[in-house]
């Protein structure tokens, strides 16, 4: 199966990488979208890229506890300074998309599915 990693998403969506520039080879197996932390805790999966509008430091604990591939913040919203500090400490990758969430989500979704379609048929 062809793999999508953060690097491909960063290049395709022209994301700004805030933390974890050295971990962009991390595989992305899916995605999850949400601003309610309990919803993300309950329903997102390991290897997901998490797309959210929340920028406060508590997103780091959620991404770390759920073993997300990384977090994409939308609408050009930079993470709060203590979020960046915590993400560095905990090894969580944070990227920023300078576009509305709808567009970011659509493009990430298409990317993941396009890769799946490229899979050679047996």
């Amino acid at each position, binding site marked *: 199966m062809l793999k999508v990693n953060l690097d491909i998403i960063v290049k395709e969506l022209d994301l700004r990488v805030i933390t974890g520039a050295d971990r962009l080879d991390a595989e992305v197996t899916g995605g999850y979208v949400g601003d309610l*932390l309990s919803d993300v805790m309950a329903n997102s999966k390991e290897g997901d890229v998490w797309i959210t509008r929340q920028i406060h430091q*508590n997103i780091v604990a959620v991404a*770390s506890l759920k073993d997300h591939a990384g977090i994409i913040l939308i609408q050009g919203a930079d993470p709060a300074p203590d979020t960046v500090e915590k993400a560095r400490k905990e090894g969580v990758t944070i990227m920023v998309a300078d576009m509305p969430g709808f567009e970011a989500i659509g493009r990430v979704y298409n990317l993941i599915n396009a890769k799946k379609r490229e899979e050679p048929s047996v």
Partner: protein
Amino acid sequence: MTKNVLSHDTAIYENSFHVEGGTFENAGHVSSQIKALLKRLKLSKEVVRRAALVTYEAEINICSYADRGQIVLRVTPEHVTVEAIDEGQGIVDIDLAMQAGYSTATEKIREMGFGAGMGLCNIKNFSDFFRITSEIGKGTHLKMVIRIDKDFDGI
């Protein structure tokens, strides 16, 4: 599950962790520690995932509503038990608090993406045994048990 069989289980790990109430500054810190510990004990991914989730929700509740609290972790060959014991306002109506979407969170807490009324439901859904008791003006006590069963690979 409600039988007193748990107390005969020999603990292979036991510890308690302090949680500061009224602030989200370190929210999730205890859950992260507990997750790392359980991983080191080589519990299955599924058990670690569920234990981390219920601990996180309990921790967030202490941060949101209590003055302070502690989270007690006990691991036996058969169960992971997490207890969250806080000193705080307590819960007026537990049945209401257990309803999905019901929350007494302030606007500030909600803006951060907490207080959606999902926390206790998540805890109930992701644990095999869950008990909640509360006393107004004193605090709330949650007990969550996750069965390890045959997923347990030893230590």
